[in-house]
Protein backbone atom coordinates (compact mmCIF):
# COMPACT_ATOMS: atom_id res chain seq x y z
CA UNK A 1 0.00 0.00 0.00
CA UNK A 2 2.83 2.38 0.82
CA UNK A 3 4.54 1.99 -2.50
CA UNK A 4 1.82 1.59 -5.10
CA UNK A 5 4.21 2.28 -7.98
CA UNK A 6 6.48 -0.62 -7.17
CA UNK A 7 6.87 -2.95 -10.13
CA UNK A 8 5.81 -6.54 -9.53
CA UNK A 9 8.52 -9.04 -8.71
CA UNK A 10 10.03 -10.81 -11.73
CA UNK A 11 8.66 -14.35 -12.00
CA UNK A 12 11.86 -16.19 -11.02
CA UNK A 13 10.05 -19.01 -9.28
CA UNK A 14 8.24 -20.09 -12.43
CA UNK A 15 10.22 -23.16 -13.62
CA UNK A 16 10.12 -24.71 -10.16
CA UNK A 17 6.40 -24.10 -9.93
CA UNK A 18 5.61 -25.77 -13.25
CA UNK A 19 7.67 -28.80 -12.27
CA UNK A 20 5.62 -29.01 -9.12
CA UNK A 21 2.43 -28.81 -11.11
CA UNK A 22 3.55 -31.71 -13.27
CA UNK A 23 4.36 -33.93 -10.32
CA UNK A 24 1.59 -33.52 -7.76
CA UNK A 25 2.80 -34.21 -4.27
CA UNK A 26 1.77 -37.27 -2.28
CA UNK A 27 -0.29 -35.02 -0.02
CA UNK A 28 -2.29 -33.70 -2.99
CA UNK A 29 -2.94 -37.22 -4.23
CA UNK A 30 -4.02 -38.22 -0.76
CA UNK A 31 -6.45 -35.29 -0.63
CA UNK A 32 -7.90 -36.26 -3.99
CA UNK A 33 -8.34 -39.80 -2.75
CA UNK A 34 -10.07 -38.60 0.40
CA UNK A 35 -12.37 -36.30 -1.56
CA UNK A 36 -13.30 -39.07 -3.98
CA UNK A 37 -13.71 -41.93 -1.55
CA UNK A 38 -16.95 -40.81 0.09
CA UNK A 39 -18.99 -40.31 -3.12
CA UNK A 40 -17.56 -43.54 -4.53
CA UNK A 41 -18.56 -45.49 -1.43
CA UNK A 42 -22.01 -43.92 -1.59
CA UNK A 43 -22.51 -45.01 -5.20
CA UNK A 44 -21.26 -48.53 -4.45
CA UNK A 45 -23.62 -48.81 -1.46
CA UNK A 46 -26.50 -47.55 -3.60
CA UNK A 47 -25.82 -50.12 -6.33
CA UNK A 48 -25.48 -52.85 -3.71
CA UNK A 49 -28.80 -51.90 -2.14
CA UNK A 50 -30.39 -51.79 -5.60
CA UNK A 51 -29.20 -55.29 -6.57
CA UNK A 52 -30.32 -56.63 -3.19
CA UNK A 53 -33.74 -55.09 -3.73
CA UNK A 54 -33.89 -56.46 -7.29
CA UNK A 55 -33.12 -60.00 -6.07
CA UNK A 56 -36.12 -60.07 -3.76
CA UNK A 57 -38.47 -58.29 -6.14
CA UNK A 58 -40.21 -59.75 -9.15
CA UNK A 59 -40.37 -56.92 -11.67
CA UNK A 60 -37.39 -54.74 -10.71
CA UNK A 61 -34.30 -55.38 -12.87
CA UNK A 62 -30.90 -55.32 -11.19
CA UNK A 63 -28.00 -53.00 -11.97
CA UNK A 64 -26.29 -55.50 -14.25
CA UNK A 65 -29.21 -56.10 -16.62
CA UNK A 66 -29.93 -52.37 -16.64
CA UNK A 67 -26.31 -51.71 -17.57
CA UNK A 68 -26.49 -54.23 -20.41
CA UNK A 69 -29.71 -52.68 -21.69
CA UNK A 70 -28.09 -49.27 -21.54
CA UNK A 71 -25.13 -50.49 -23.60
CA UNK A 72 -27.50 -51.66 -26.33
CA UNK A 73 -29.49 -48.47 -26.13
CA UNK A 74 -26.50 -46.15 -26.39
CA UNK A 75 -24.80 -48.19 -29.09
CA UNK A 76 -27.16 -46.50 -31.56
CA UNK A 77 -28.72 -43.45 -29.93
CA UNK A 78 -29.86 -41.75 -33.13
CA UNK A 79 -31.79 -44.39 -35.07
CA UNK A 80 -35.14 -43.46 -36.55
CA UNK A 81 -37.82 -46.11 -37.14
CA UNK A 82 -40.72 -43.75 -37.45
CA UNK A 83 -42.31 -41.40 -34.91
CA UNK A 84 -42.98 -44.06 -32.24
CA UNK A 85 -39.55 -45.67 -32.28
CA UNK A 86 -36.61 -43.33 -32.25
CA UNK A 87 -33.20 -43.51 -30.60
CA UNK A 88 -32.67 -42.33 -27.02
CA UNK A 89 -30.58 -39.42 -28.30
CA UNK A 90 -33.55 -38.04 -30.23
CA UNK A 91 -35.73 -38.31 -27.15
CA UNK A 92 -33.24 -36.42 -25.01
CA UNK A 93 -32.74 -33.72 -27.63
CA UNK A 94 -36.47 -33.27 -28.11
CA UNK A 95 -37.06 -32.87 -24.39
CA UNK A 96 -34.16 -30.42 -24.14
CA UNK A 97 -35.55 -28.53 -27.12
CA UNK A 98 -38.96 -28.11 -25.49
CA UNK A 99 -37.34 -26.99 -22.25
CA UNK A 100 -35.18 -24.57 -24.22
CA UNK A 101 -38.09 -23.00 -26.10
CA UNK A 102 -40.41 -22.84 -23.08
CA UNK A 103 -37.68 -21.47 -20.85
CA UNK A 104 -36.51 -19.02 -23.51
CA UNK A 105 -40.00 -17.58 -23.84
CA UNK A 106 -40.29 -17.41 -20.05
CA UNK A 107 -37.00 -15.49 -19.88
CA UNK A 108 -38.14 -13.18 -22.66
CA UNK A 109 -41.29 -12.27 -20.73
CA UNK A 110 -40.06 -12.79 -17.17
CA UNK A 111 -36.84 -10.75 -17.15
CA UNK A 112 -38.39 -7.45 -18.34
CA UNK A 113 -41.40 -8.04 -16.12
CA UNK A 114 -39.12 -8.73 -13.14
CA UNK A 115 -37.19 -5.51 -13.84
CA UNK A 116 -40.42 -3.54 -14.04
CA UNK A 117 -41.75 -5.07 -10.80
CA UNK A 118 -38.47 -4.38 -9.01
CA UNK A 119 -38.30 -0.79 -10.23
CA UNK A 120 -41.92 0.31 -9.80
CA UNK A 121 -43.54 -0.46 -6.45
CA UNK A 122 -47.01 0.28 -7.79
CA UNK A 123 -46.68 -2.41 -10.43
CA UNK A 124 -45.26 -4.76 -7.80
CA UNK A 125 -48.35 -4.12 -5.67
CA UNK A 126 -50.63 -4.75 -8.64
CA UNK A 127 -49.06 -8.05 -9.62
CA UNK A 128 -48.22 -9.43 -6.16
CA UNK A 129 -51.63 -11.04 -5.50
CA UNK A 130 -51.79 -12.60 -8.97
CA UNK A 131 -48.28 -14.03 -8.76
CA UNK A 132 -48.85 -15.32 -5.22
CA UNK A 133 -52.04 -17.02 -6.37
CA UNK A 134 -50.67 -18.63 -9.53
CA UNK A 135 -47.18 -19.57 -8.38
CA UNK A 136 -48.12 -22.54 -6.12
CA UNK A 137 -50.26 -24.14 -8.84
CA UNK A 138 -48.89 -27.45 -10.09
CA UNK A 139 -47.46 -26.89 -13.57
CA UNK A 140 -49.45 -29.81 -15.02
CA UNK A 141 -52.71 -28.11 -14.09
CA UNK A 142 -51.92 -25.66 -16.89
CA UNK A 143 -51.72 -28.43 -19.50
CA UNK A 144 -55.46 -28.56 -20.33
CA UNK A 145 -55.46 -24.78 -20.84
CA UNK A 146 -52.54 -25.17 -23.21
CA UNK A 147 -54.27 -27.98 -25.12
CA UNK A 148 -57.43 -25.90 -25.34
CA UNK A 149 -55.70 -22.76 -26.61
CA UNK A 150 -53.07 -24.27 -28.89
CA UNK A 151 -55.01 -27.36 -29.97
CA UNK A 152 -51.75 -29.29 -30.26
CA UNK A 153 -49.63 -31.36 -27.88
CA UNK A 154 -46.22 -29.81 -28.69
CA UNK A 155 -47.09 -26.17 -27.98
CA UNK A 156 -49.10 -27.28 -24.94
CA UNK A 157 -46.08 -28.88 -23.27
CA UNK A 158 -43.96 -25.83 -24.13
CA UNK A 159 -46.68 -23.72 -22.52
CA UNK A 160 -46.41 -25.80 -19.34
CA UNK A 161 -42.65 -25.25 -19.27
CA UNK A 162 -43.18 -21.56 -19.86
CA UNK A 163 -45.66 -21.12 -17.04
CA UNK A 164 -43.66 -23.19 -14.55
CA UNK A 165 -40.32 -21.54 -15.20
CA UNK A 166 -41.50 -17.94 -15.41
CA UNK A 167 -42.12 -17.50 -11.65
CA UNK A 168 -38.56 -18.01 -10.42
CA UNK A 169 -37.32 -15.70 -13.19
CA UNK A 170 -39.78 -12.90 -12.34
CA UNK A 171 -39.34 -13.17 -8.58
CA UNK A 172 -35.55 -13.40 -8.55
CA UNK A 173 -35.13 -10.57 -11.05
CA UNK A 174 -37.51 -8.37 -9.07
CA UNK A 175 -35.75 -9.19 -5.80
CA UNK A 176 -32.41 -8.46 -7.46
CA UNK A 177 -33.56 -5.08 -8.76
CA UNK A 178 -35.03 -4.15 -5.39
CA UNK A 179 -31.78 -5.05 -3.63
CA UNK A 180 -29.39 -3.07 -5.83
CA UNK A 181 -27.26 -1.19 -3.28
CA UNK A 182 -28.31 2.44 -2.86
CA UNK A 183 -24.62 3.36 -3.20
CA UNK A 184 -24.57 2.30 -6.84
CA UNK A 185 -27.72 4.28 -7.53
CA UNK A 186 -26.22 7.30 -5.74
CA UNK A 187 -23.23 7.08 -8.07
CA UNK A 188 -25.67 7.11 -10.98
CA UNK A 189 -27.48 10.11 -9.52
CA UNK A 190 -24.31 12.12 -8.93
CA UNK A 191 -23.18 11.36 -12.49
CA UNK A 192 -26.70 12.12 -13.79
CA UNK A 193 -26.60 9.02 -15.95
CA UNK A 194 -29.43 8.56 -18.43
CA UNK A 195 -32.13 5.98 -17.64
CA UNK A 196 -30.67 3.77 -20.40
CA UNK A 197 -27.16 3.92 -18.95
CA UNK A 198 -28.47 3.26 -15.45
CA UNK A 199 -30.11 0.14 -16.85
CA UNK A 200 -27.17 -1.15 -18.88
CA UNK A 201 -24.24 -0.05 -16.71
CA UNK A 202 -25.65 -0.38 -13.20
CA UNK A 203 -28.96 -2.20 -12.84
CA UNK A 204 -28.36 -5.06 -15.25
CA UNK A 205 -24.87 -6.03 -14.01
CA UNK A 206 -26.01 -5.65 -10.39
CA UNK A 207 -29.04 -7.87 -10.96
CA UNK A 208 -27.23 -10.48 -13.04
CA UNK A 209 -26.22 -12.74 -10.10
CA UNK A 210 -29.85 -12.80 -8.88
CA UNK A 211 -31.04 -13.35 -12.41
CA UNK A 212 -28.70 -16.31 -12.80
CA UNK A 213 -30.17 -17.86 -9.64
CA UNK A 214 -33.63 -17.39 -11.10
CA UNK A 215 -32.57 -18.99 -14.36
CA UNK A 216 -31.03 -21.93 -12.55
CA UNK A 217 -34.19 -22.53 -10.51
CA UNK A 218 -36.35 -22.08 -13.62
CA UNK A 219 -34.38 -24.60 -15.67
CA UNK A 220 -34.46 -27.02 -12.74
CA UNK A 221 -38.25 -26.78 -12.53
CA UNK A 222 -38.61 -26.97 -16.31
CA UNK A 223 -36.59 -30.14 -16.46
CA UNK A 224 -38.65 -31.65 -13.63
CA UNK A 225 -41.87 -30.82 -15.39
CA UNK A 226 -41.02 -31.80 -18.96
CA UNK A 227 -40.99 -35.54 -18.24
CA UNK A 228 -44.42 -35.40 -16.66
CA UNK A 229 -45.81 -33.15 -19.40
CA UNK A 230 -44.52 -35.41 -22.17
CA UNK A 231 -46.05 -38.45 -20.49
CA UNK A 232 -49.42 -36.78 -20.94
CA UNK A 233 -48.91 -35.20 -24.36
CA UNK A 234 -46.88 -37.87 -26.12
CA UNK A 235 -44.64 -37.05 -29.07
CA UNK A 236 -40.92 -37.68 -29.02
CA UNK A 237 -39.22 -37.03 -25.70
CA UNK A 238 -38.01 -38.63 -22.50
CA UNK A 239 -41.42 -38.48 -20.82
CA UNK A 240 -43.15 -40.14 -23.74
CA UNK A 241 -40.37 -42.69 -23.93
CA UNK A 242 -40.78 -43.59 -20.24
CA UNK A 243 -44.52 -44.06 -20.73
CA UNK A 244 -43.97 -46.05 -23.92
CA UNK A 245 -41.47 -48.38 -22.22
CA UNK A 246 -43.92 -48.82 -19.32
CA UNK A 247 -46.49 -49.97 -21.85
CA UNK A 248 -43.85 -52.33 -23.27
CA UNK A 249 -43.09 -53.41 -19.69
CA UNK A 250 -39.42 -52.67 -20.36
CA UNK A 251 -38.50 -51.69 -16.81
CA UNK A 252 -34.75 -51.55 -17.56
CA UNK A 253 -35.42 -48.70 -19.95
CA UNK A 254 -37.50 -46.85 -17.34
CA UNK A 255 -34.63 -47.09 -14.87
CA UNK A 256 -32.23 -45.88 -17.56
CA UNK A 257 -34.56 -42.97 -18.27
CA UNK A 258 -34.58 -42.01 -14.58
CA UNK A 259 -30.80 -41.98 -14.52
CA UNK A 260 -30.64 -39.98 -17.77
CA UNK A 261 -33.11 -37.41 -16.47
CA UNK A 262 -30.99 -37.10 -13.34
CA UNK A 263 -27.72 -36.79 -15.23
CA UNK A 264 -29.05 -34.21 -17.69
CA UNK A 265 -30.55 -32.20 -14.83
CA UNK A 266 -27.23 -32.35 -13.00
CA UNK A 267 -25.35 -31.25 -16.11
CA UNK A 268 -27.72 -28.32 -16.70
CA UNK A 269 -27.32 -27.22 -13.09
CA UNK A 270 -23.52 -27.44 -13.21
CA UNK A 271 -23.29 -25.53 -16.48
CA UNK A 272 -25.47 -22.75 -15.11
CA UNK A 273 -23.49 -22.64 -11.86
CA UNK A 274 -20.34 -22.27 -13.93
CA UNK A 275 -21.87 -19.41 -15.91
CA UNK A 276 -23.17 -17.81 -12.72
CA UNK A 277 -19.69 -17.87 -11.21
CA UNK A 278 -18.50 -15.62 -14.01
CA UNK A 279 -20.99 -12.93 -12.99
CA UNK A 280 -20.49 -13.13 -9.25
CA UNK A 281 -18.70 -9.97 -8.24
CA UNK A 282 -17.41 -10.09 -4.70
CA UNK A 283 -17.08 -6.42 -3.85
Amino acid sequence: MNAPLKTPLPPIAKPRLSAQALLPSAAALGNLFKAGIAPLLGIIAFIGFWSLLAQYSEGLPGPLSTWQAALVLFADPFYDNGPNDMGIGWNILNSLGRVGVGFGLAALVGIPLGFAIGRFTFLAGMLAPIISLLRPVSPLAWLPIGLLVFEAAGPASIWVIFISSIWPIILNTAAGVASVPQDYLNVARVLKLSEFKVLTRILFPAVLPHLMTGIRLAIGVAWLVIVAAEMLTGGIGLGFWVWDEWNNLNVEHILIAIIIVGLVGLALEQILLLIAKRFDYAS
Partner: protein
Amino acid sequence: MDKFVELTSVSKHFDTKKGRFQALADVNLSIARGEFVALIGHSGCGKSTVLNLIAGLLDANEGGLICNGREIDGPGPERAVVFQNHSLLPWMTCFGNVHLAVEKVFGARENKAQLKARTEQALNMVGLNHAMHKHPNEISGGMKQRVGIARALAMEPKVLLMDEPFGALDALTRAHLQDELLRIVGQTQSTVVMVTHDVDEAVLLSDRIVMMTNGPAATVGEILAVDLPRPRDRLALANDPQYHAYRTAVLEFLYQRQQRPAA
Protein backbone atom coordinates in the same frame (compact mmCIF):
# COMPACT_ATOMS: atom_id res chain seq x y z
CA MET B 1 -15.64 36.63 1.34
CA ASP B 2 -16.63 35.00 -1.90
CA LYS B 3 -19.54 32.71 -1.12
CA PHE B 4 -19.10 29.79 -3.47
CA VAL B 5 -21.29 27.38 -1.58
CA GLU B 6 -23.87 28.85 0.73
CA LEU B 7 -26.32 27.23 3.12
CA THR B 8 -28.90 29.57 4.63
CA SER B 9 -31.02 28.43 7.59
CA VAL B 10 -31.21 24.90 6.27
CA SER B 11 -33.19 22.31 8.18
CA LYS B 12 -33.88 18.72 7.43
CA HIS B 13 -36.12 16.12 9.04
CA PHE B 14 -36.70 12.47 8.30
CA ASP B 15 -40.04 10.76 8.73
CA THR B 16 -39.39 7.46 10.46
CA LYS B 17 -41.66 4.83 11.91
CA LYS B 18 -41.20 6.37 15.35
CA GLY B 19 -42.29 9.74 14.05
CA ARG B 20 -40.46 12.78 12.76
CA PHE B 21 -36.74 13.02 13.41
CA GLN B 22 -35.36 16.54 13.19
CA ALA B 23 -31.81 15.94 11.96
CA LEU B 24 -30.68 19.48 11.20
CA ALA B 25 -32.05 22.84 12.27
CA ASP B 26 -31.01 26.27 11.05
CA VAL B 27 -27.65 25.40 9.51
CA ASN B 28 -25.80 28.43 8.11
CA LEU B 29 -22.49 27.98 6.31
CA SER B 30 -20.57 29.74 3.57
CA ILE B 31 -17.66 28.18 1.77
CA ALA B 32 -15.26 30.14 -0.40
CA ARG B 33 -13.86 28.99 -3.74
CA GLY B 34 -10.75 26.88 -3.25
CA GLU B 35 -11.41 26.40 0.44
CA PHE B 36 -11.01 23.09 2.27
CA VAL B 37 -13.71 22.72 4.91
CA ALA B 38 -14.02 19.83 7.34
CA LEU B 39 -17.31 18.98 9.04
CA ILE B 40 -16.68 17.33 12.38
CA GLY B 41 -18.99 16.13 15.12
CA HIS B 42 -20.06 13.07 17.04
CA SER B 43 -21.63 10.26 15.09
CA GLY B 44 -25.29 10.88 14.39
CA CYS B 45 -24.91 14.67 14.48
CA GLY B 46 -25.98 15.03 10.89
CA LYS B 47 -22.67 15.94 9.30
CA SER B 48 -23.22 13.44 6.50
CA THR B 49 -26.71 14.87 6.05
CA VAL B 50 -25.18 18.30 5.44
CA LEU B 51 -22.88 16.77 2.84
CA ASN B 52 -25.73 14.92 1.13
CA LEU B 53 -27.74 18.14 1.05
CA ILE B 54 -24.89 19.92 -0.74
CA ALA B 55 -24.53 16.92 -3.04
CA GLY B 56 -28.25 17.14 -3.79
CA LEU B 57 -28.80 13.51 -2.83
CA LEU B 58 -31.17 14.82 -0.15
CA ASP B 59 -33.55 17.77 -0.35
CA ALA B 60 -33.71 20.32 2.45
CA ASN B 61 -37.08 20.86 4.11
CA GLU B 62 -36.36 24.51 4.78
CA GLY B 63 -33.72 27.02 3.84
CA GLY B 64 -31.68 27.59 0.74
CA LEU B 65 -28.60 25.93 -0.73
CA ILE B 66 -26.62 27.69 -3.41
CA CYS B 67 -23.54 26.50 -5.29
CA ASN B 68 -21.73 28.86 -7.66
CA GLY B 69 -24.68 31.23 -7.80
CA ARG B 70 -27.26 28.55 -8.55
CA GLU B 71 -29.81 26.85 -6.36
CA ILE B 72 -28.87 23.24 -5.64
CA ASP B 73 -31.63 21.15 -7.18
CA GLY B 74 -30.68 17.48 -7.20
CA PRO B 75 -27.29 15.85 -7.63
CA GLY B 76 -24.92 16.61 -10.47
CA PRO B 77 -21.36 15.99 -11.58
CA GLU B 78 -20.26 19.54 -10.70
CA ARG B 79 -20.58 18.41 -7.06
CA ALA B 80 -18.66 15.14 -7.13
CA VAL B 81 -18.93 12.83 -4.14
CA VAL B 82 -16.30 10.50 -2.72
CA PHE B 83 -18.41 7.99 -0.84
CA GLN B 84 -17.48 6.51 2.50
CA ASN B 85 -17.45 2.94 1.19
CA HIS B 86 -15.85 3.87 -2.17
CA SER B 87 -18.98 2.74 -4.11
CA LEU B 88 -17.05 1.45 -7.07
CA LEU B 89 -19.02 -0.65 -9.52
CA PRO B 90 -17.55 -4.13 -9.06
CA TRP B 91 -18.22 -5.24 -12.65
CA MET B 92 -16.00 -2.54 -14.10
CA THR B 93 -12.24 -2.17 -13.89
CA CYS B 94 -10.74 0.82 -12.12
CA PHE B 95 -10.35 2.38 -15.56
CA GLY B 96 -13.99 1.61 -16.36
CA ASN B 97 -15.23 3.17 -13.15
CA VAL B 98 -13.38 6.43 -13.75
CA HIS B 99 -14.17 6.38 -17.47
CA LEU B 100 -17.90 6.15 -16.78
CA ALA B 101 -17.67 9.51 -15.01
CA VAL B 102 -15.32 11.08 -17.56
CA GLU B 103 -17.51 9.95 -20.43
CA LYS B 104 -20.57 11.48 -18.83
CA VAL B 105 -18.99 14.85 -18.10
CA PHE B 106 -16.78 15.35 -21.15
CA GLY B 107 -18.21 12.85 -23.66
CA ALA B 108 -20.14 15.46 -25.60
CA ARG B 109 -17.14 17.70 -26.23
CA GLU B 110 -14.13 15.41 -26.47
CA ASN B 111 -13.09 12.45 -28.59
CA LYS B 112 -12.30 8.96 -27.38
CA ALA B 113 -8.55 9.48 -27.11
CA GLN B 114 -9.04 12.59 -25.00
CA LEU B 115 -11.46 10.78 -22.68
CA LYS B 116 -9.02 7.92 -22.30
CA ALA B 117 -6.20 10.36 -21.54
CA ARG B 118 -8.32 12.11 -18.92
CA THR B 119 -9.15 8.80 -17.24
CA GLU B 120 -5.52 7.71 -17.22
CA GLN B 121 -4.42 11.07 -15.91
CA ALA B 122 -6.88 10.89 -13.01
CA LEU B 123 -5.70 7.40 -12.07
CA ASN B 124 -2.13 8.56 -12.45
CA MET B 125 -2.75 11.41 -10.04
CA VAL B 126 -3.76 8.98 -7.28
CA GLY B 127 -0.81 6.71 -8.15
CA LEU B 128 -2.84 3.87 -9.60
CA ASN B 129 -1.76 3.65 -13.23
CA HIS B 130 -0.42 0.16 -12.58
CA ALA B 131 -3.80 -1.15 -11.32
CA MET B 132 -5.90 0.50 -14.02
CA HIS B 133 -7.21 -2.73 -15.51
CA LYS B 134 -7.90 -4.52 -12.25
CA HIS B 135 -11.37 -4.99 -10.84
CA PRO B 136 -12.21 -3.46 -7.45
CA ASN B 137 -12.22 -6.87 -5.74
CA GLU B 138 -8.59 -7.38 -6.77
CA ILE B 139 -7.24 -4.29 -4.99
CA SER B 140 -6.92 -3.16 -1.37
CA GLY B 141 -9.34 -0.90 0.49
CA GLY B 142 -6.97 2.04 0.26
CA MET B 143 -6.60 1.58 -3.49
CA LYS B 144 -10.38 1.41 -3.91
CA GLN B 145 -10.72 4.69 -2.08
CA ARG B 146 -8.06 6.17 -4.39
CA VAL B 147 -10.10 5.10 -7.39
CA GLY B 148 -13.13 6.76 -5.78
CA ILE B 149 -11.10 9.97 -5.42
CA ALA B 150 -9.82 9.67 -8.99
CA ARG B 151 -13.37 9.22 -10.25
CA ALA B 152 -14.50 12.34 -8.41
CA LEU B 153 -11.50 14.44 -9.45
CA ALA B 154 -11.74 13.33 -13.08
CA MET B 155 -15.09 15.08 -13.31
CA GLU B 156 -13.32 18.39 -12.57
CA PRO B 157 -16.04 19.23 -10.08
CA LYS B 158 -16.71 22.72 -8.74
CA VAL B 159 -16.91 21.18 -5.28
CA LEU B 160 -15.44 17.91 -4.11
CA LEU B 161 -17.58 16.34 -1.40
CA MET B 162 -15.98 13.63 0.72
CA ASP B 163 -17.97 11.58 3.21
CA GLU B 164 -15.51 10.13 5.73
CA PRO B 165 -13.40 8.97 2.79
CA PHE B 166 -10.70 7.38 4.91
CA GLY B 167 -12.88 6.17 7.78
CA ALA B 168 -12.68 2.50 6.86
CA LEU B 169 -8.90 2.40 6.36
CA ASP B 170 -6.11 1.48 8.74
CA ALA B 171 -4.12 4.33 10.30
CA LEU B 172 -1.04 4.07 8.07
CA THR B 173 -3.00 3.88 4.84
CA ARG B 174 -5.16 6.73 6.03
CA ALA B 175 -2.12 8.93 6.71
CA HIS B 176 -0.72 8.09 3.32
CA LEU B 177 -3.93 8.99 1.53
CA GLN B 178 -4.28 12.20 3.54
CA ASP B 179 -0.84 13.26 2.32
CA GLU B 180 -1.83 12.40 -1.25
CA LEU B 181 -5.03 14.39 -0.89
CA LEU B 182 -3.06 17.41 0.43
CA ARG B 183 -0.81 17.22 -2.60
CA ILE B 184 -3.67 16.78 -5.09
CA VAL B 185 -5.78 19.56 -3.61
CA GLY B 186 -2.69 21.77 -3.65
CA GLN B 187 -2.35 21.05 -7.37
CA THR B 188 -5.97 21.36 -8.39
CA GLN B 189 -7.02 24.16 -5.99
CA SER B 190 -10.31 22.31 -5.52
CA THR B 191 -13.05 23.42 -3.19
CA VAL B 192 -13.49 20.53 -0.76
CA VAL B 193 -16.05 19.70 1.90
CA MET B 194 -15.04 16.68 3.95
CA VAL B 195 -16.97 14.92 6.66
CA THR B 196 -14.72 13.38 9.27
CA HIS B 197 -14.65 12.30 12.88
CA ASP B 198 -10.87 12.38 13.03
CA VAL B 199 -9.56 15.51 14.75
CA ASP B 200 -6.02 15.18 13.36
CA GLU B 201 -7.34 14.71 9.87
CA ALA B 202 -9.49 17.82 10.19
CA VAL B 203 -6.64 20.03 11.45
CA LEU B 204 -4.10 18.65 8.98
CA LEU B 205 -6.24 19.10 5.88
CA SER B 206 -8.63 22.00 6.39
CA ASP B 207 -8.69 25.74 6.10
CA ARG B 208 -11.71 25.81 8.37
CA ILE B 209 -13.22 23.23 10.68
CA VAL B 210 -16.98 23.34 11.09
CA MET B 211 -17.85 21.76 14.43
CA MET B 212 -21.39 20.54 14.74
CA THR B 213 -23.54 20.26 17.84
CA ASN B 214 -25.13 16.95 18.74
CA GLY B 215 -28.42 15.95 17.18
CA PRO B 216 -31.34 15.91 17.08
CA ALA B 217 -31.74 19.34 15.54
CA ALA B 218 -28.00 19.60 15.08
CA THR B 219 -26.49 22.79 13.78
CA VAL B 220 -23.14 24.52 13.34
CA GLY B 221 -21.69 24.97 16.81
CA GLU B 222 -18.44 26.72 16.09
CA ILE B 223 -16.15 27.36 13.16
CA LEU B 224 -12.40 27.22 13.65
CA ALA B 225 -10.11 28.81 11.05
CA VAL B 226 -6.93 26.75 10.73
CA ASP B 227 -4.22 29.19 9.86
CA LEU B 228 -1.32 26.86 9.20
CA PRO B 229 0.86 27.56 6.14
CA ARG B 230 0.65 25.27 3.12
CA PRO B 231 2.11 22.98 1.94
CA ARG B 232 1.66 21.22 5.26
CA ASP B 233 3.92 18.47 6.44
CA ARG B 234 2.66 15.88 8.86
CA LEU B 235 6.00 15.43 10.66
CA ALA B 236 6.78 19.13 10.94
CA LEU B 237 3.31 19.79 12.32
CA ALA B 238 3.71 17.10 14.97
CA ASN B 239 5.93 19.52 16.94
CA ASP B 240 4.10 22.69 15.99
CA PRO B 241 2.48 24.37 19.03
CA GLN B 242 -0.05 26.11 16.75
CA TYR B 243 -1.16 22.74 15.37
CA HIS B 244 -1.65 21.43 18.89
CA ALA B 245 -3.60 24.51 19.89
CA TYR B 246 -6.04 23.88 17.01
CA ARG B 247 -6.24 20.24 17.90
CA THR B 248 -7.01 21.05 21.53
CA ALA B 249 -9.67 23.55 20.50
CA VAL B 250 -11.51 20.90 18.49
CA LEU B 251 -11.14 18.30 21.23
CA GLU B 252 -12.49 20.72 23.80
CA PHE B 253 -15.50 21.44 21.67
CA LEU B 254 -16.18 17.75 21.08
CA TYR B 255 -15.56 16.40 24.56
CA GLN B 256 -16.39 19.28 26.89
CA ARG B 257 -19.04 21.40 25.27
CA GLN B 258 -20.63 18.58 23.23
CA GLN B 259 -20.65 15.51 25.41
CA ARG B 260 -20.69 12.34 23.42
CA PRO B 261 -24.26 11.11 23.27
CA ALA B 262 -24.87 7.82 25.03
CA ALA B 263 -23.57 5.37 22.48
